Each structure stands twice: as C-alpha cells, then as structure tokens.
C-alpha cells in the first residue's frame, strides 16, 4: 500500500449545499500531508468523511487500504485523531481519560505516555472541564499519540493555541515519528502553522481541490524574478508560466512558475537582452497567495 489515504471523486452534500465536491487525493505513506484552505472550504467535512463520521454522498475514500465506511476496530487502533471540535468526556480527570483509553489499544506505550505527560506538563488529577484550551488539546493529543498510531489525523490542531503550546504540540507529534512508517494528515487554514512540517500539500476551496503537490517541488519551481534593465528597451510579453509581470522604471518583475535556471534565463534574455537577472526563492505562503490570485483571474484555479 503506497497511499495511506486515497479518495476518488469524494463528494458530500448537506441538502443543497455541496461541502466537498469531486475530491481526489492521494496521501503517500510516510508523508506529512497538509490539507489547506480558508475556513468553510470543506476541510473538516473531508476529515469526517475519512474517519467515517460522515458518509459520502458520492465517490469513495480508502484509509489504510479500507473503504472509509468499513473502518473498524482494527483500523481505529492504528489511527490517531485529534479535532478542535472533539467531544471529550469532560467529567474525567487526565488520569481517568488515559486509563479509559489504554485498553482499546494493544500498542499503547506506557513509557511514551509517561514521557509525554511530563513534556506537556499536564496535571493528572485535574478534570478535563477545568483545563485551558491548550491543555485540553494536549490531553487529546497525548491520548492519540501514546499508542504510536500509523496514521495521525489532525483537524485544525493549532487554531487558538498560543505559540508556546503550539510548539509543545509540534514537538509531541514529532516524538512518535518513525521514518517511513508514520503518516500525518493535518488540516489548517494557515500555512505557516505547518510549513516546516509538511512535505505534501493540497489546497481546497469551496469544496474543490485547487492543487496537490510535494512542497519541495512547489518551492523548487516558483521564483520571484527581477530583471534590471540598462535602458528602456525590451518587450513585455509573458509566456504562460510567468505571472504578475510588471515593470517600474528599469526594473521588471514577475513570478516564474516553472523555474529552471537555464530555461528561465534564456527566456529572460530573449526579451531583455542586457538585463541583470535575479531569482529569489519564495515562501509557501507567497506561492499560495500567488496561485490564489491567479486562480481568481482565470477561474480555472490550477497553474500546472
């Protein structure tokens, strides 16, 4: 099984509202996969479909090789799921929560549990209802990490967490990482939360997939280009892989979406023979903003 999660034309309607439309995704085993999109884009619905908390209207999802509608105990024991809207037994103390969860998971690791308890500084005797939001999320994460799940599914885990708690949270997730056999599927509305963590991204908007690609390939093919011209010559015609071409005085700027040093420089020289060419790497956030702007203009959404 190369893909831990696979969806085909996954669709979910609530009455006349289509929350997820025709979504086809592949999450490779061993990846940290980020599902990104603004609030209301369909991220939570997608995750609920994957976790069999909702049934698809059309299409299908396979998780750990099994149709999501048939997820059973055997699969659940290998999946860790933490959601910002999770229902937790608030009358329990942290200790009671862990005692309650432990028997469900044959792979529960007491030593890891102990280490994470200390690392998260969770008060064992306090009731969940008396925990702060950050503490509560850490308790939920702890109860999902202690059995070393093969697949960790996190629905907006960072929203509303202060920077310190977020940092502890990320560290906790990495505590159970095992190279090649550990997959994380995380949704977020903010790329900066997951930028250094994920190696695959998918962006959805209004229930539709905008694009999905390894982060390394995105970072590799996008460059903010600057050409400084010695004079006012040159012509401003852009090939389709150049976006936002603009000129101010002797400076020409554009965004190259298919950067390859030689080809890009050749294309520049054809238009601006004596210009000094500079290529600046872009952050994932800048790339997403560029793609969102371009998508709005063409309505096709995908710059591929």
């Amino acid at each position, binding site marked *: 099984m190369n893909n831990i999660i696979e969806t085909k034309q996954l669709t979910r309607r609530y009455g006349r509202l289509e929350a997820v439309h025709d979504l086809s995704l592949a999450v490779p085993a061993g990846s940290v996969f980020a599902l990104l999109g603004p609030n209301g884009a369909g991220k939570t619905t997608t995750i609920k479909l994957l976790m069999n908390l909702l049934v698809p209207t059309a299409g299908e999802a396979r998780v750990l090789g099994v149709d999501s509608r048939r997820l059973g105990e055997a699969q659940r024991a290998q999946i860790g799921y933490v959601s910002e809207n999770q229902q937790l037994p608030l009358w329990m103390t942290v200790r009671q929560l862990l005692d309650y969860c432990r028997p469900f998971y044959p792979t529960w690791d007491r030593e890891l549990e102990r280490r994470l308890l200390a690392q998260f500084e969770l008060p064992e005797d306090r009731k969940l209802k008396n925990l702060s939001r950050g503490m509560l999320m850490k308790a939920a994460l702890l109860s999902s990490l202690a059995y070393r799940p093969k697949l960790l599914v996190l629905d907006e885990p960072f929203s509303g967490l202060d920077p310190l708690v977020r940092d502890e949270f990320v560290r906790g997730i*990495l505590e159970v990482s095992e*190279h090649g056999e550990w997959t994380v599927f995380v949704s977020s509305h903010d790329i900066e939360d997951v930028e250094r963590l994920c190696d695959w991204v998918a962006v959805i908007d209004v229930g539709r997939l905008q694009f999905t690609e390894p982060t390394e390939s995105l970072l590799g093919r996008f460059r903010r280009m600057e050409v400084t011209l010695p004079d006012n010559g040159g012509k401003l015609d852009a090939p389709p892989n150049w976006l936002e071409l603009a000129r101010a005085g002797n400076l020409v700027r554009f965004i190259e979406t298919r950067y390859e040093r030689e080809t890009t420089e050749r294309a520049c020289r054809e238009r601006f023979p004596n210009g000094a060419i*500079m290529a600046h*790497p872009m952050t994932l956030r800048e790339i997403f903003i560029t793609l969102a702007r371009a998508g709005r203009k063409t309505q096709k959404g995908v710059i591929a």
Partner: protein
Amino acid sequence: MLPFSIELKAGLPVAEQILFAVKKAVIAGQLRPGEKFPSVRVLSQELRINPNTAHKVVAALVTEGVLITTPAVGSIVAEPVAGGRRERAELLGADLERVVVEARNLGLLLEEVQAGLAAHWRKLGGK
C-alpha cells in the same frame, strides 16, 4: 540542544539551510571530528521540522563526507576530506556567481567584494 547554531529563515529550503549551518560549524570548530552528531529524530524535534527533511540532511552530510555513520553510535563528524582542491573549488561556483550578480546589482566594485569576502574569511578563523 543542537551542537551547531542555526536560525531557520522563511523562503529558503530548510535542508539547504541546515547543511550550510553544519558545514559552517565544522569549519568554525564547533563540531569536531569524532564528535557525535544528533539523530534524525533529535534533529527533527529540536528544529520542529519534518522527519523526512531531517533524514535527507543526515543522508546528504554522509554522502558529502561530512559525517560517517557507525552502527553502534549513529553519526559522527568525519575528518575533513583532503580531496582535489580544484573539485572542491568547483563546488563553490554557483554560490560565487550569485555573490557576483548581487554585488553588480548593488553597483559594488570587485575590490569592495574582495574586502568583504576577506573580512568574512577572517571572522570564521581562516588565514
């Protein structure tokens, strides 16, 4: 704590930044031959980065001869390689070109760039 200093900047590939920081630490003597290098997990946890990225960094450092993997201990810092000078100089080509382009864009003279280069050289303890 990591045995080399690094502050990850947005926009640049994380792996390249770490590779650079490690090599710099070796040249500057923060990391000495024979010393233990952090494991993939420690690297990923300390820097809060993807474990696959951390794995790639360690693999690249081994390939480039900066680290050696030993079965019992993990990775240790290697003795500096005494490879061909010209080959090693060629490794710098792309970086030098970038410096030249930047310098020209800023309208600097060759002597000014050389002086800046020499200052950095001395700062890292070079002669």
